[in-house]
């Protein structure tokens, strides 16, 4: 199951809520304002590092670029919309709005 998160972790509990339910191995993809989650050195970095021990984490590159986020947590993969499509082709989707 692919989980997408589109909210800043500072303004919504989508991030905190989603990670309670993800199963080991489930990929997590941050899109839209969700990409603020993967910026280095923020309040959620430690939690995200914990998630990354068991789950692959992706962020949508055009959304990172649009928000001027260059320094992202090591180990987070970036994908474009084509990569988003590939993830969807591999997994059912749970969009955490």
């Amino acid at each position, binding site marked *: 199951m692919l989980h997408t998160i*589109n909210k800043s972790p500072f303004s919504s509990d989508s991030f905190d809520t989603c990670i309670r339910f993800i199963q080991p191995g489930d990929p997590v993809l941050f899109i839209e304002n969700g990409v603020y989650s993967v910026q280095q050195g923020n309040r959620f970095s430690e939690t995200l590092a914990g998630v990354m021990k068991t789950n692959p984490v992706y962020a949508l590159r055009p959304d990172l670029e649009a928000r001027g986020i260059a320094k992202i947590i090591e180990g987070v993969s970036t994908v474009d*919309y*084509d990569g*988003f499509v590939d993830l969807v082709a591999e997994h059912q989707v749970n*969009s955490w709005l």
Partner: protein
Amino acid sequence: MKIGILLKEGPYNHQAADTAYKFAEAAIRKGHTVDAVFLYNDGVTNVTKMMDPPQDDRNIAVRWDQLHKEHGVEILACIAASKRRGICDEVLIEGGEITGLGTLTDIAIRNDRLLTFGD
């Protein structure tokens, strides 16, 4: 892969309509089928032809219309949600259609994926 999309937010106010479009575009480019975009909640306001943004901005309604005309993607607005928000045949883009939630159920059943975009 056959994909259905559920879009739950109106245009411009939220990025959902843009992400949904970019995703659909990429999926089609990669050879997948995008069966339908079903509009719900304020998402129904994506398909009013009264939309007239500044010249240098994207016209989201026109974009959906083209997606229908060029790639056969059904652009469907929920009738109950549309009635609440004043979306009717008189203001609907040519490539759009107003339909019931039963159609969304069919879309969920007949596609490999149903993706949601919204707030």
